[in-house]
Structure formats: C-alpha cells, structure tokens
C-alpha cells in the first residue's frame, strides 16, 4: 500500500509541474500494477484506492474510469495465478497493456480520434512504460534499506 500511496502522491505532484497531462507518466497505474503484482490477494482494496483517487478530478465518466481501474487491478490479480507478476519484465508488460487499454478507453469515451491526439496517447503509454523500471528500481532500493 505504501508504494501505491507514494505513486499517487508523486503523480499529483507531477501533475502540478508538467504543463500537459499527456506527457505525464501514469504513475497511478504503475503503482497499481506494482502493488497488485506483489500482493494479488489485495487487488480489491488497492484498486478501490486508485479509483477513489482518480475520481477526485473527474468531470465525467466517473463510473466508467473507476471500473476501468478496478478491472485493471482484477486482471493483474487474476494473472498472478499463472504468471509471476512480481517479475520486473512482466510488470512492465502489464503496465504497457493496462496503460494502452486505459488510454484508448479514455479516447473512446470522449470521441477523441484525431491523429495528433492518438500520437499524444501513444507518447503517454510509452512514457508510462518507460517509467515503470525506474519506479520499480526506486521501490526495490527503498525495500533493501
């Protein structure tokens, strides 16, 4: 839970610094995947926390986005039965897949299908994917201490 809370706080702090939310890595999702990957049995509580946090700034589609995060948490928790979701590479893949699904879902909900927006969405998924190993390394370093 500490990793998740840290990621949520960092995400909000970065949102104040980065002018465009498209260039902001989805630290919320990274936190969710890392936390559920480590403790799959707690997916419900972790997803609920993330959903509540995201709802703070929602102008619309609150239910849909809340359920989206819940679904991501459930999916990672379920995949943990077959895969080692604590593994860094698997976590990276899960973040990329969940990030792409959430971003495409957001575009679909708001009917934003222009080429520049798709480019920004791709950039967001890649930035999020790129940040996953960094967050993971940070978490591991803290855990070793």
């Amino acid at each position, binding site marked *: 839970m500490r990793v998740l809370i840290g990621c949520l706080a960092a*995400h*909000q702090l970065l*949102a*104040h610094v*980065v*002018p*465009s*939310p*498209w260039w*902001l890595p*989805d630290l*919320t999702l990274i936190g969710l995947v890392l936390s559920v990957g480590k403790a799959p*049995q*707690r997916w*419900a*509580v972790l*997803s*609920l926390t993330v*959903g*509540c*946090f*995201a*709802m*703070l*700034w*929602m*102008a*619309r*589609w*609150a*239910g849909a*986005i*809340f*359920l989206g995060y*819940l679904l991501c948490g459930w999916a990672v928790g379920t995949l943990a039965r077959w895969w080692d979701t604590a593994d860094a590479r698997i976590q990276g893949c899960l973040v990329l897949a969940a990030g792409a699904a959430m*971003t495409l879902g*957001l*575009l679909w*909900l*708001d*009917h*934003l299908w*222009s080429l*520049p*927006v798709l480019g*920004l*969405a791709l950039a*967001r998924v890649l930035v999020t994917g790129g940040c996953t190993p960094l967050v993971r390394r940070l978490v591991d370093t803290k855990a070793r201490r």
Partner: protein
Amino acid sequence: MRTPPRTVPILAVAVAALLVFHRPFRDLTLTFLRLPLTAVRAVAGVLLALPHLPSLAQENAALRARLAERQLESARLRELLRRTQQGQALTKAPAAPRGIVAMVIGRSTIPTQHTVVLNQGERQGLTVNSVILDAAGVTGRVIDLFPSSCLVMLVTDPESRIAASIERSRETGLLAGRGRGHCELIYLDAQADIQEGDRVVTAGLGGSFPKGLVLGKVTRVVRDEPSGSTSAWVSPAAHLGQLEEVLCLLPDATASAGARGEGRATR
C-alpha cells in the same frame, strides 16, 4: 481447513458500487479525500515561499506605495465624478463585478479531462457555472461544487463549449476544447473576417460568461470551401499549465459584468 476471510473484497465491492451509483456518498467521500490535498498544498506553499521572503518584502513595499497612489487617484476621480453633470447617471451604473481568489489544490491526472480543483466552494458563494479567470483571461467554469472546494472544467477540455467572438470583426462562433492544450473556434461563416493573431473574447451569449472576457488568440484559420464553413485554432490566453491562483466571479458579479459588457473584475 480455514477458509480465507472474504469480508474485505465484499466490503470493497460494496463501497465501489456506492461510489459509482450513489452520488451523495461519492460527494461525501470526495470532500473527505480532498482535505489532505488542501493541507499539503498549504505546507508546500509555505515552503516554496520561504526563499522569496526578502524579495516579497520589497515587492510588498512597492505595492503599498502603488496602492496609496491609486487611492489618491480614486479620491480625485470621485471628486471629479461628483462635480460632473452626468455624475448622477454614472453612479446608477451597476456595481463593479466581485470575485474571490482561489488556489488550485489539485489537477487532473487523466489526460482527456482537463480539470482542476479549487479551495473555494459553495460556502464562499460559488455556484455551478461560476466563471474562473486568471490574470491573462478565462480559465474555465465550475462544474461541480462541494462545501469548501469545487471542480473546474478548463477551456481546453473536450466537453468545454463557450460562445465566443472575434474582438476586431465581431464574428461569432463556438469555442470548443480539443483536449490537447488548444481550442477550436467553430461554426464561423465561410467568408468570416478572421485572421491569425486576432483576439478571441466571450460573446456573452448563453448567460454563463460575461461579454468581453479574453479567451485567447487565433493561431490558424482553416477555411473549408466545400462545406462553406470556417474554423480557427485558438491558443488560450490563460496559462492553464501553470495555474496557481485564480479569480472566481461570483454569480451576481457575472450578471452585472454582462450588463456592463466589460471583462474587468475587482477582487
């Protein structure tokens, strides 16, 4: 064999259902969740202000001097007004619009929803559709109210729609957010008199926004001959990426500003 406890997932799902489908419960939860944000913001504000204390003192002294000058000027103008023959008529003009200053305590982390959370709400007199400005122009409008905070939809949000006109030519259209830092002025005539660099202001139609508030500047004009329409890309005047303090126009202020056709607001 001991079965694992299922209370937590069941409770979590129940709370999730309440949050999704029960609006009062959601509002109550959000009000509680936003309390730490306000506290964190206040502490961060104090810490960030510390290095600027010496320059703040100088700036404060300069501002006091300017305030004194303005007070003198105001007194002189009042006297002139009293002496003018039309003084009586001028004093009957609507009062200058009032507003309250609010701080941004949260920003959207969802890229398709351009919203911010302010630390002023229903208790301070804000209502849904209250207009929010910064020093450069219109920022957005209140879409959700809580007792001491509110959610503001920025002009760049894909759902944002504002009746707007070109200040120079008075061509009127609809300013629509496009979800990526820019807006588009749509529903303009094919032969609309519009060019790059034109200032876009609120048209004052629809009631929410007073007439004449600055929205942004035209960066590109797109003329579509086959459909007989013109649209223009508009760069918002407000610094939406670095919002810290904003001015919220109070409902009566919005009405009086609309009547005067002015975009100025006093704190």
